[in-house]
């Protein structure tokens, strides 16, 4: 099965969907230092710096998971990574946030080789929301957010509290500070983890499918929060409409290789979607915002040569043999089209 999505998706473009129009293909948003976060006490630790992935290849146990990936995220841009399951999105992101060392290639954060930097120094530049969220231990929300301060040196308890309070206020979780993290809903958890990332005061934010398991309102909510951080963002996203609505630039991964990149609506063309995702896409305009939305249908698989609806039904074949067939499933049918 290559089809992941059928029928109508939610109106992923609501919110700031229209804002993406006219963004140039290289995705550079200028004037980031004066972005929306400037008024909030400089949360985010300053302007986003550029992020670069150059020729990254990852081999695990002799198998190539991703091959020769190149990718550039301009400072302050929001870049999305899309691709079918198993295309290598998570593996590539793990290389970026240093959970995995690439077999070859370089990840650059503002020009520095991320894997050559000391671990804590890199963590001061780049924060991540990995897909895991299982902890055996019930930390409070305040403690989880406080972990964002770990990579920083020369900090004070009072300063940390202030920074964490700002981060929690920013993502709207201040009232949850004393609650146990494990008891939160999916949307609350994600907001807490974003608060932790903000408390880290990084320049780059990497997110691995941050909208997984969230309802549509929380999906939009999380992406606008991230968008509003002013940081350089690289996010793996499942929902193509959400990705198109929120990202400046999209990169498409398929089978471990980068197959397309550019402005969302230049990238998400019917041929590409058919080839990579195995779906037939129908672009339609949102009746209110006018933003282009994609509707998806299942595409008959190219390997499936039989015309739809004319599958020869498995005909019950009476076995006249007195002895049981030792290989019932490898039994070759003598008549390919016995009774249409």
């Amino acid at each position: 099965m290559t089809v992941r999505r059928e029928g109508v998706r939610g109106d992923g473009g609501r919110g700031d969907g229209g804002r993406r129009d006219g963004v140039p293909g290289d995705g550079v948003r200028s004037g980031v230092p004066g972005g929306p976060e400037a008024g909030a006490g400089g949360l985010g630790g300053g302007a986003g710096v550029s992020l670069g992935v150059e020729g990254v290849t990852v081999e695990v146990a002799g198998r190539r998971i991703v091959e020769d990936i190149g990718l550039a995220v301009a400072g302050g841009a929001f870049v999305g990574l899309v691709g079918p399951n198993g295309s290598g999105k998570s593996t590539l992101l793990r290389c970026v946030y240093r959970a995995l060392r690439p077999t070859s290639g370089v990840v650059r954060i503002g020009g520095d080789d991320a894997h050559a930097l000391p671990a804590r120094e890199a963590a001061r530049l780049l924060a991540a929301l990995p897909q895991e969220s299982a902890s055996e231990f019930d930390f409070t929300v305040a403690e989880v957010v406080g972990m964002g301060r770990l990579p920083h040196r020369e900090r004070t308890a009072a300063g940390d509290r202030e920074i964490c309070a700002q981060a929690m206020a920013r993502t709207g979780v201040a009232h949850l500070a004393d609650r146990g993290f494990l008891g939160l809903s999916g949307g609350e958890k994600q907001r807490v983890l974003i608060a932790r990332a903000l408390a880290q005061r990084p320049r780059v934010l990497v997110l691995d499918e941050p909208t997984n398991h969230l309802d549509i309102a929380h999906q939009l909510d999380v992406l606008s929060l991230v968008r509003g951080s002013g940081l350089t963002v690289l996010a793996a996203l499942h929902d193509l409409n959400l990705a198109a609505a929120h990202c400046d630039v999209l990169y498409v991964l398929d089978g471990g290789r980068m197959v397309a990149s550019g402005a969302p609506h230049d990238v998400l063309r019917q041929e590409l979607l058919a080839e990579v995702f195995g779906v037939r896409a129908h672009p339609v305009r949102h009746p209110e915002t006018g933003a282009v939305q994609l509707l998806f249908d299942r595409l008959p698989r190219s390997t499936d040569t039989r015309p739809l609806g004319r599958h020869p039904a498995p005909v019950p074949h009476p076995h006249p043999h007195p002895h049981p067939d030792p290989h019932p499933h490898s039994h070759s049918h003598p008549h390919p089209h016995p009774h249409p």
Partner: protein
Amino acid sequence: MRQARSHGRVPLPPLVLGLSLVLAGSVVCGVGLGAAGVAWADVVRFLWAGGTGGSVRAADGAAYTIVWEIRLPRVVLGAVVGAGLAAVGVAVQAMVRNALADPFVLGISSGAAVGANAVILLGAFAGLGVWALSVSAFGSALVAMALVYGVARSGVGLTPLRLVLTGTALAYGFEALTTVMVFGAARGEAARAAMMWLLGSLGGATWAQVPIAAATVVAGWVWLRARAEALNALAMGDETSAALGVRPERLRRELFVVTAAVTGTVVAVSGAVGFVGLMVPHVVRMVVGADHRRVLAVAPLVGAVLLVWADVLSRLLLAPAELPVGVITAVVGVPVFLLLMRRGGYAFGGR
């Protein structure tokens, strides 16, 4: 219920101060209580004299020896062992990210038991005299540690599941070896001593054992406490920890060595005292929350107090005979643990 609970609000300094006073009181009580009756006034006087380098009358010589040379090292060693097991329990649970782990899950104590019983039952390393038991137990703990480490290691470093499974599997192997030795031993008294050691006992405590054990436990605790925040990150997951600038595979490797060294040392002087390393971290988390900075400040004190009193009970319940202290920690610990778990809506194992 868990959602409404606000934990981590118990202020730390008064708690630590209070527990330190309780520990000091427990030590005095531990020295005062015993099969041979020594008046409380004398106990305090002897402790004062011993501590300040004062003198006692010759007539008090026997009582003083009981207090200063027999009971006090035993009580102090009990406190050290309890503190060490509790601290290591916290660290191991974070290391394998499993709230059900304890210092013995890595198979180190079972390994130590092989060495200890080789001495008790087969008379190995007789040339080392009184040190034979400790040295042999520690040595075989190190061998067990190297074995577990070597088997658990994979291309991606030490993963929690592999560590637990390897530790458990090898522990069965070590226990089989021990059992063979116990059954093969002709002497009944030796088998009893072996059983005593397997369940944990402070009966053989001497001053000579205290400095090494105390130094190892203190050093291990200082190392862990300095990495409390990194332990928090590790408890959240390897990916999160990497993103926060803590290299999980390296931290886990270091934790393995530190916890193995402390466990090996503690087990070498006291045998395998169970439940302290499993229970104390849980009880402490219920009171102060999951933050390792707080847990590691409190858990060793609670472990020390618990083991001092467990040892007192082990001496008094069947006096003049002694029970293994591990029996007491189990008898006291299991119901307390089950009660707390059922009552508090405590996020046991996270779910």
